[in-house]
């Protein structure tokens, strides 16, 4: 789960990592009031779930409360990569002398969180990794004891951090590792970590991605989930307990098992169609779940037809057929549906579909060809 910068900083602050004072504002007036409380120049930072805010104009400055208000008015409502800015973080401006990068990411190969640090901070770390990989020092964390302070200092020293930053930077990196592990993060970054002109070391920006599977034991963080404006359907699907990903084609796709659904998308593409979504109903789904999945996929206005591809194991063909028939009344009239059933209960399910006058495919390819053809025929009919 993605969280906002201000939420990531709230987690960091719990672990004693120094951050600039500040608060979130939803209106220019609130931003002005916060700036007045803080005193002195402030930074107004758009809180959206995408990178590259600075380049898009989502980070602006105000030397006075009035300027802060004007800056917030410019940033609030701004569109950044398809997302509307609904809140801004107002923080005291730092006099930055140096910028560094501290990050921890779950590494699949070493099967552990890996620390990455660099003295080239404030920029896109993937770019640094691609162009000057020698500037990044990496080290896995042993989960039996976490990152120990001396290890953190060693990593920073190896990366060439100046002596003025080693001690406090080491404490911050140790705390970041604790925050990562105890919050069940997949990613935790401080970019940049700054050394200010008056010699302070602070986290000027932070990014944390949490493990969805661990949210059950972090209820306070789970409450931060909010709809992604670019993808309202995905948010609702998640609330409904459906594993759904929106894509940009017009063939709705439902199947059981992630690998099979992905393969079905590829098959539809190979047959000249464009998948509109990925929806996995999981194992052992009942008719009600199947019906819910169908009506959900049909809510996407881009969907011009739906392919259901089920390999029955613990999922039973008759249940799937019953679900498709149940959903039929709620679906737009004339929406082509092709169902492909195999495995457990496939015979019974196919007989039920035939009685209900529904189309079915003998295998995945046949079904994919049928739905693509049905959609094309309908579009031609509409043009004529």
């Amino acid at each position: 789960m993605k969280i906002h910068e201000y939420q990531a900083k709230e987690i960091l602050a719990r672990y004693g990592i120094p951050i600039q004072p500040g608060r979130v504002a939803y209106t220019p007036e609130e931003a002005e009031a916060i700036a007045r409380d803080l005193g002195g120049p402030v930074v107004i930072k758009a809180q959206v779930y995408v990178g590259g805010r600075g380049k898009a104009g989502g980070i602006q400055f105000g030397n006075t409360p009035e300027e802060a208000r004007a800056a917030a008015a410019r940033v609030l409502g701004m569109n950044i990569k398809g997302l509307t800015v609904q809140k801004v973080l107002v923080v005291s401006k730092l006099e930055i002398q140096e910028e560094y990068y501290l990050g921890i990411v779950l590494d699949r190969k070493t099967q552990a969180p890996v620390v990455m640090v660099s003295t080239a901070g404030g920029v896109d770390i993937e770019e640094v990794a691609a162009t000057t990989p020698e500037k990044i020092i990496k080290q896995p964390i042993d989960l039996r004891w976490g990152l120990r302070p001396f290890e953190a200092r060693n990593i920073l020293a190896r990366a060439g951090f100046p002596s003025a930053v080693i001690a406090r930077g080491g404490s911050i990196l140790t705390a970041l590792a604790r925050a990562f592990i105890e919050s069940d993060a997949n990613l935790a970054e401080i970019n940049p970590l700054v050394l200010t002109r008056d010699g302070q070391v602070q986290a000027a920006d932070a990014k944390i991605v949490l493990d969805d599977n661990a949210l059950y034991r972090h209820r306070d963080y789970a409450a931060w989930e909010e709809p992604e404006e670019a993808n309202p359907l995905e948010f609702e699907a998640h609330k409904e307990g459906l594993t759904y990903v929106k894509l940009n084609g017009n063939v709705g796709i439902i199947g059981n098992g992630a690998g099979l659904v992905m393969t079905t998308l590829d098959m539809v593409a190979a047959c000249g169609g464009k998948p509109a979504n990925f929806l996995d109903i999981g194992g052992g789904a009942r008719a009600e779940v199947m019906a819910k999945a169908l009506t959900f996929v049909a809510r996407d206005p881009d969907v011009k037809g739906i392919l259901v591809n089920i390999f029955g194991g613990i999922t039973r063909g008759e249940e799937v057929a019953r679900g498709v028939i149940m959903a039929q009344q709620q679906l737009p009239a004339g929406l082509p549906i092709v169902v492909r059933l195999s495995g457990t209960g496939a015979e019974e399910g196919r007989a039920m579909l035939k009685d209900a006058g529904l189309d079915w495919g003998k295998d995945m390819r046949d079904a994919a060809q049928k739905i693509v053809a049905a959609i094309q025929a309908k579009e031609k009919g509409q043009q004529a």
Partner: protein
Amino acid sequence: MSILLDEHTRVIVQGITGREGSYHTTRMLEAGTKVVAGVTPGKGGQSACGLPVFDTVAEAKAATDANASCIFVPPAGAADAIMEAASAGIKLIVCITEFIPVLDTARAMLVVREHGATLIGPNCPGLCTPGQGKIGIMPYQIFTPGPVGFISRSGTLTYEVVALLTEAGIGQSTCIGIGGDPIIGSTFVDHLKLFEQDPQTQAVVLCGEIGGSDEEDAAEFIKTMKKPVVAFISGRTAPPGKRMGHAGAIISGNTGTAQGKVAALQAAGVPVAETIFDIPDLVKAALARRV
């Protein structure tokens, strides 16, 4: 012969009294698997599916001499169940459970390695040796014994492809679903090594998907293998940055794309099927070259 699961495999089921645990234990017994006991803390002394239930894996192992475990424990306790099995000396651990916090799996792996056990999964359908039995949830009736080893990250895709192989008259030695999580107990390479040594196996089918670099690692290892490998990669149409159902099926930046995996495998001389329907012919050709 086969790998991992043979006539000497004696299985316990952790979470046997749950809905999934009891249903699949019955299916495993029907398939001929030597399931010898179950474990559910607090239900020791009871019986389930006609088998004795113990409170701990250590007790179950002592009483039955089990050497494998199949885990159906819910996510919050599943990693602990893996560590319990490894600590009790169980050498083959199959974890079916999906949605385990990934750091829990990472911690469990430390214990699995320390005890020299093999973990398959989590978030996997298990494995099947046709004619001997299965550990996990694969539908046994679609398999038939034969010369082809099978490794996949996905469950239902495995069934789909195995059904095509069986229909084409191509039998299987052992089929393994290694799991769709970002951190899994054993990889393509681990199982390719076993298939390379197995006398029954004459060729291997590898079904990969987007995310991570296990397929690229497999491609490197295949260069050193004598037995032919045929591959299929799903997720060619998946957009970057989106999790496609499996927690591990995500393209991050430029890593984990289907195109990258296909290219790595082809560079290792592996025929990569365009669609799953091409797999049986590619396997037949590979087997013919071998004879």
